[in-house]
């Protein structure tokens, strides 16, 4: 603050950093080595840059693994350039000219932050620092008590210093902090005693209770949201999201102007059930069990439609379970096979290693040149043999896995195919054991469980609607219409073509919606399948390559050991 500007501000350039790193790096013998080799910035763990008259933080992007950074006693005005230092645990920016807290959003590992003696007036932008334990904000310009409430979100915060701020002059300062930050242990370098905490809690009990209540509500809301999102994710994984309610039905009518108009016709309302035109109702989940079987006859169009959707939904979830189980078994088996193969490989290598050491020693101790040569030849034969053995093992595993993967591929494609077919109802549902089960268990439902049945239902509804419309038109023509129709509806009943077109348009929109949903389901399930299989194949190839590389590397190493011995002997 009252810094003397007698020295010129310095720039954080490479030279400065190198110097600092060199000075703070290893010493003595290790230091000589370090000097010889140079220390890469990305390996440096701690860096001290105090009293350097730095104005701007810069050039720090290379220090990726830095844990501790000291930039105190400079003339820094803005926190910047620290985005790459994600491993930072300790950051000291005290005695600078910082005015606002910013640029710390990526430092999620930060535990100790010191901003002592700056010009900060507001505590914020610290949300990312979830591990924060020590926060030093003394000698700043913080004036509002409410800043302290912001600190409630840091569950790990134990030490706080705020002395030298305008807030600290408030006579209630200590009590307030004690009350609002009950987990705090040290305030302004002093331990808070329990008695004090109790007093503070009593004093501020009401406001804190209120605050807690609000926080709890928020928390609950967040959790709800989370749970809902997770559920939706799960449904999406089963490709039947939003089929467990009226969503599809509602969306059918959402863009259908004519339909909503027509629903006001006498008779159509009953057909649709009391259906609020145009406005999608909030998703209501009707488990089909709530509906009485005896009511089947009186089911309206909407009810029937929703039941079909629910059936598809349940079926989808079941199929998803099945696919998951299949995948798990497959993965387990593959893992086991690989494990077993690796064990064999390890055993072979261990055996070889013993022999290897012995023969290397033998060669070393052998004095006769001809013997050495024969031994070397023998040993290199051994190495080749090992290579062959390991490669055979690997090839064997590859073959075995290929077979297994192919089997899995067939099965999973079958499963997906069955699912799609059943949803599209290309085959009668009864062929699927699961489907049969559900149909047998609820015979009142076997009227429909597939998209095709949705369409049938829609067609049926369309016919009925058309009938009603034509009836009304006839009535109107005959002048027998005793009810008043809204104007926009009446405008449709000008002639037969118009009304038929309107009803047809509505029908087309509905069918389109159903088709779209079906297409979406089918494409997604198919792409999931392809992706999965691709990944499995790719993983297997990667594994194979890695293993082959590993084996070659090892053989090379062993061979080179032998070779170096040869040269050594030749030199001797």
């Amino acid at each position, binding site marked *: 603050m009252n810094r003397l500007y007698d020295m010129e501000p310095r720039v954080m350039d490479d030279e400065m950093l190198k110097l600092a790193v060199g000075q703070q790096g*290893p010493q003595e*013998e*290790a230091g*000589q*080595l*370090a000097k*010889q*080799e140079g*220390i890469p910035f990305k*390996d440096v763990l701690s860096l001290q840059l105090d009293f350097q008259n730095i104005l701007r933080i810069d050039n720090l992007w290379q220090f990726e693994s830095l844990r501790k950074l000291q930039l105190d006693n400079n003339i820094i005005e803005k926190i910047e350039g620290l985005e790459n230092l994600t491993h930072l645990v300790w950051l000291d920016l005290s005695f600078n000219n910082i005015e606002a807290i910013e640029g710390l959003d990526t430092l999620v590992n930060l535990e100790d932050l010191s901003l002592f003696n700056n010009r900060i007036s507001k505590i914020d932008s610290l949300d990312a620092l979830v591990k924060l334990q020590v926060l030093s904000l003394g000698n700043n310009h913080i004036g509002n008590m409410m800043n302290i409430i912001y600190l409630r979100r840091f569950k790990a915060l134990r030490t706080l210093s705020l002395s030298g701020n305008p807030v600290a002059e408030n006579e209630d300062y200590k009590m307030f902090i004690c009350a609002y930050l009950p987990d705090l242990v040290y305030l302004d370098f002093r331990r808070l005693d329990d008695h004090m905490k109790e007093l503070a809690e009593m004093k501020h009990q009401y406001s804190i209770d209120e605050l807690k209540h609000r926080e709890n509500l928020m928390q609950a809301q967040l959790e709800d949201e989370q749970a809902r999102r997770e559920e939706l994710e799960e449904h999406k994984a089963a490709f039947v999201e939003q089929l467990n309610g009226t969503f599809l039905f509602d969306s059918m009518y959402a863009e259908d102007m004519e339909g909503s108009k027509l629903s006001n016709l006498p008779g159509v309302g009953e057909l649709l059930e009391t259906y609020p035109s145009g406005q999608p109702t909030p998703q209501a989940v009707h488990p089909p069990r709530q509906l009485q079987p005896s009511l089947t006859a009186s089911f309206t169009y909407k009810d029937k439609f929703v039941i079909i959707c629910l059936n598809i939904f349940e079926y989808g979830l079941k199929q998803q379970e099945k696919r998951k189980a299949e995948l798990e*078994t*497959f993965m*387990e*088996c*593959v893992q*086991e*096979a*690989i494990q077993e193969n*690796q064990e064999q*490989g*390890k055993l072979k*290598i261990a055996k070889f290693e013993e022999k290897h050491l012995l023969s290397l020693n033998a060669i070393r101790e052998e004095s006769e040149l001809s013997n050495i040569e024969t031994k070397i030849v023998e040993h290199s034969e051994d190495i080749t043999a090992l290579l062959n053995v*390991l490669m055979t093992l690997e090839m*064997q595993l590859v*073959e*075995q*896995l290929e*077979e*297994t993967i192919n*089997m*899995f591929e067939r099965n999973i494609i079958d499963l997906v195919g069955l699912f799609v077919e059943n949803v599209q109802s290309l085959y009668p549902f009864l062929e699927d054991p699961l489907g049969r089960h559900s149909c047998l268990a609820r015979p009142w439902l076997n009227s429909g469980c597939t998209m095709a049945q949705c369409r049938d239902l829609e067609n049926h509804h369309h016919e009925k609607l058309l009938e009603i419309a034509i009836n009304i038109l006839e009535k109107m023509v005959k002048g027998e219409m005793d009810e008043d129709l809204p104007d926009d509806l009446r405008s449709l009943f000008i002639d037969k073509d118009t009304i038929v077109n309107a009803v047809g348009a509505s029908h087309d929109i509905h069918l389109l919606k159903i088709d779209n949903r079906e297409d979406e389901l089918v494409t997604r399930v198919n792409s999931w399948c392809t992706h999965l299989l691709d990944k499995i194949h790719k993983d297997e190839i990667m*594994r194979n390559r*890695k*293993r082959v590389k*590993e*084996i070659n*590397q*090892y053989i090379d*190493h062993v061979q080179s050991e032998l070779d170096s011995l040869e040269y050594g002997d030749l030199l001797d």
Partner: protein
Amino acid sequence: MEVLKEKVEEEEAAEREEAAERAERGEKTKKPTEVRREETTLTQEMLRDLERKLSEIEVSVPEKLLTFTKDTIDTSKLPLSYQSNTLKEEHLLQVADNFSCQYSHLCPDRVPLFLHPLNECEVPKFVSTTIRPTLMPYPELYNWDTCAQFVSDFLSMVPLPDPLKPPLYLYSSTTVLKYQKGNCFDFSTLLCSMLIGAGYDAYCVNGYGSQDLCLMDLTREVCPLTLKPKETVKEEEKAPPKKYAIKPPRDLTSRFEQQQEVKRQEAIKAEEENRRKQEEARLLEQENAKTDPLHGLRVHSWVLVLSGKREVPESFFIDPFTAHSYSTQDDHFLGIESLWNHKNYWVNMQDCWNCCKELVFDLGDPVRWEYLLLGTDKPFLSLTEEEDEGMNDDDDVEKLGKEDEDKSFDMPPSWVEQIEISPEAFETRCPNGKKVIQYKRAKLEKWAPYLNNNGLVCRLTTYEDLECTKTLEVKEWYQNREDMLELKHINKITGLNVDYFKPGHPQALRMHSYKSMQPEMDRVMEFYETARVDGLIKREETPKTMTEYYQGRPDFLSYRHVNFGPRMKKLALNSAESNPRPMVKITERFFRNPAKPADEDVAERVFLIAEERIQLRYHCRSDHITANKREFLRRMEVDSKGNKIIMTSDMCISFEVEPMEHTKKLLYQYEAMMKLKNEEKLSRHQAWESELEVLEILKLREEEEEAHTLTISIYDTKRNEKSKEYREAMERVLHEEHLRQVEAQLDYLAPFLAQLPPGEKLTRWQAVRLKDECLNDFKQRLIDKANLIQARFEKETQELQKKQQWYQENQVTLTPEDEDLYLSYCSQAMFRIRILEQRLSRHKELAPLKYLALEEKLYKDPRLVELLKVFV
């Protein structure tokens, strides 16, 4: 009774005619009331006869075993029930005689029944009444196996006087316990009493046993302690192959060849098996060469335990001599005459042609088992209707049991006194606390705990040959050792000693196997690793190496192997210090540390100290088959300019499965090497400490062996001297307390009352005077006491002053000793004065209170209270 007797007489008269050779016996049963006497004479006759026979056979039985005869028993102190029979018992004897005579009539070719032998007082007693069911107050005796073991240990065996006949005498269990000797009948009676007391359905059996059984000859038995427990091989259940399990690689070997190979192997195996069997058969024959001429005739008594009670699943026999249990089909048991418990007596009516193998122990079946008394419970009446009816027609047998008078008659209570075993006797177990059993190729010796002062309780010596001359190995079991030694196993052939310890040894030793106690020899020590800070499980030593196994260490060390080189020539100067052998190589292995990635976690490191090399092998990553390796050469070199080379790239040879950037750096390698250097030092130090520890343990072991102190439980009131002293002290304190209490109740009015004329009632005047006198007296005493203390105080002060004066006068001439003396006197005197002062002030404080207390007591004294009431 009369009617029946007549009936029997008639019958017998009829039979006499047709069976001439049986006439003699018929006569004897003519007058059943006299039968008893006659029968005894008969048995004596037979005895004589037998004696003659016996003199021909004469089994060589040690003389001293025969000393347990009537003469040695002091019968004078035995209770009345031993010396005479009650009316009921007399009646029972009559019934038994009747039964016996009918039995001998019906089964003339069978041996007479063992019904009422004489007891130690020459009084005939029925066998069932000799059984005295008793539940012993020792938890060990609650189960049949420990109970039988106790009986077999506690009594020493005396062979039957005549091995072919039941004994004439059957002593009470109390007498048997007192003298700790008995024949098989005594053994089984005692065991049966205890088992019935413990709730078992047990019976004494009179029957025939093999020679080994009767003479308690175990030399043909394999010692149960030498048998190795059979390892139960657990078949691991194979999980059903999963859906996507990989197929095994194709087997390209020839099936036919495999089959041929298997056939060949089998043939060889069969041949071997055959040879082995033949060998075994030959051996067995050799062993069993001596056959017994009296096979099947030797009388023996044992215990039968029937299933049903105490969750016994199957009936079995217990041989009371050896405490072994046998199945009822065992070859050793050759036949059963009769059996009895405390309630009834059954005669076996089944044929014993095939030993006891086909006997059915359904005592409720009167065809198979003829009972003596009706009306007692029949434990196993499991007959079908048909059989029952069929039996009712069988009048021959029926007559024996169905005597109407006897229906309500039940067994009189036992004449034997309560069986008691004192805790001392129970602990000492064997007579004189020692017992030796000879088994086939083995000898077992047992001692009572604390009998041997080194804690030895059991020794099993195994021999190579049947004659027991060449010792194979010796096993010694110990108890109550302070060093927790449990078992010492000495192999005489290899010279290997193995000591086993219970938890609690000061060095947490579990097992110690060695050939000699000299250090740096072959030895293995196992430890209770949870009791050790360093988690050491096992340490193996050979003259050149030392291997240690660890478990559960924070640094994950699991194994350390040290190779030692030859010891350097010692310098004469520092001969007092230890001269450790130089270490050539240290190999350490580590468990996987889950906190580190596998390719940075060292699995094995080898310090080649002589070559100045360090080899590292890392753990293998889960998806790899090779592991990182690194080798450091520690040689310090100097370059051409004479500068020290700190680190060069050829000082570290490494193989990395996945080459990493930073490990190539010299700095990294240098730091790693420095760290390893330190760790090498540490490892060497630890190895050195281990060596020291071995020496320490060996020393400790030697000391322990020398001292072989025994621990004594604090609950063992007899042996634990300390607790005994403590208890005695407590008792003394209690006694003193009691005395003091008696003193406290002294009558303070007694001396004053004595002055008054006796026998007269106190007047009030007298009472008041009495009270006043008493109080005055007490006051005087208090004053006297105060004066006394005061006088002493003054005397002490004066003396001190004098002494001080003397000191000041002679201060210059005093020797230091005198001065010391004076000073110590001063401090003591000061102490005394201070104490006197305190006592005085205390007395002053308490005296008025004491006076008031006495006054109040006097007012309340029952003798004065009436008279003094007015003044209150």
